[in-house]
């Protein structure tokens, strides 16, 4: 490929190839403090939909080791988003070393708080805010659970902020570095934020899962206890590789559900969410 970039995020090493210079330049800038591995787990290719489309209304097709056949191409000014989506796809479909939960995570005192929920639940913003409030940010998209030890393995990729969360984090973390603001993406406005320095320098440091939250944004503050059966069911839905891991997945997930206390929380602002999370952490973790 014309342009190439390599990066390691937590345990996963990526090679990004691109027909265009711009997305690779943006990634080099945002991932400047990340290590580069001497091996590659996954390759992502950002390719012109057709040779001419490299120049005329350029349109980026996301290809790689693992692909979704019907993924819509993105315009070139969303090339960085295409690369991030490609990296997520490789992890979601191809990663086998740990159980993947679609969840964010933050660490304090060697213990991890895991937050899972659908897109829009606020898990990404919540982890980013915790990263500004005395916690170590571990990841905003995937929590990786080691099948042998049960530890949470950090995956601190660029924090993907959407819509209102962009302004919220700009004011909460004025010194942080941000990527370009991308309008009208399939998920609205998106802007990437570089995780705090500590999240990157300590990305190989694991933590013991100690609290699992199911946040839900937009409802009056409330805490609900959850039965182990419900938690198990929701985590199988939140995992992209539970079935692929077979018995190892069953063993690690049942142990996780038995050992980690879980609560559903509703909240209407970041401050409320942080306060609820801190309160539950003090009681349960």
């Amino acid at each position, binding site marked *: 490929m014309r342009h190439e970039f390599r990066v390691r995020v937590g345990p996963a090493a990526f090679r990004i190839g691109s027909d265009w210079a711009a997305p690779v330049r943006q990634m080099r800038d945002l991932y400047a403090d990340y290590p580069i591995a001497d091996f590659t787990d996954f390759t992502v290719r950002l390719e012109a939909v057709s040779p001419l489309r490299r120049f005329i209304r350029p349109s980026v097709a996301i290809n790689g080791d693992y692909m979704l056949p019907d993924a819509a191409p993105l315009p070139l000014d969303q090339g960085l988003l295409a690369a991030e989506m490609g990296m997520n796809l490789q992890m979601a479909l191809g990663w086998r070393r740990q159980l993947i939960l679609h969840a964010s995570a933050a660490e304090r005192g060697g213990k991890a708080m895991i937050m899972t929920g659908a897109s829009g639940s606020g898990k990404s913003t919540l982890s980013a805010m915790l990263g500004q409030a005395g916690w170590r940010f571990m990841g905003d998209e995937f929590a990786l659970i080691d099948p042998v030890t049960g530890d949470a393995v950090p995956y601190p990729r660029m924090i993907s902020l959407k819509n209102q969360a962009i302004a919220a984090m700009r004011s909460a973390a004025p010194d942080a570095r941000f990527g370009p603001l991308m309008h009208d993406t399939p998920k609205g406005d998106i802007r990437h934020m570089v995780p705090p320095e500590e999240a990157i320098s300590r990305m190989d440091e694991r933590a013991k899962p100690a609290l699992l939250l199911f946040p839900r944004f937009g409802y009056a503050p409330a805490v609900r206890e959850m039965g182990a*059966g419900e938690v*198990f069911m929701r985590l199988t839905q939140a995992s992209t590789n539970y079935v692929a891991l077979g018995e190892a997945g069953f063993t690690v997930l049942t142990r996780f559900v038995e050992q980690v206390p879980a609560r559903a929380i509703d909240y209407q602002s970041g401050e409320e969410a942080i306060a609820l999370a801190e309160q539950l952490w003090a009681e349960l973790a």
Partner: protein
Amino acid sequence: MTGLLPFETRYRAEKAADIIIRPLDVMTLVYHRRSGITHIVAQPVPEILLAMAGKVMNAAELAAKLAQEYDMDDNADVHAVLSERLEELASLGLVEPVHAP
């Protein structure tokens, strides 16, 4: 099926080593090693799988075996309930109908 007929269907259950049964509050998880599928089940399914493990039984034989190990409700139509559960377990692949020659 009435269950009283002499040709009542018999089922062969998975061996104990081929399933993992993990109780989780009000439900029970059953991991089926041969298919890699996780089933979420309620009583009396775990009891049935444990009682039948590796053996061939029909509903009447299963009812007799369960009666030895558990307090059964005398008023319930145990036989009909077990026949239904066995059919469901067969559709999940956890037991297999055995057809007489």
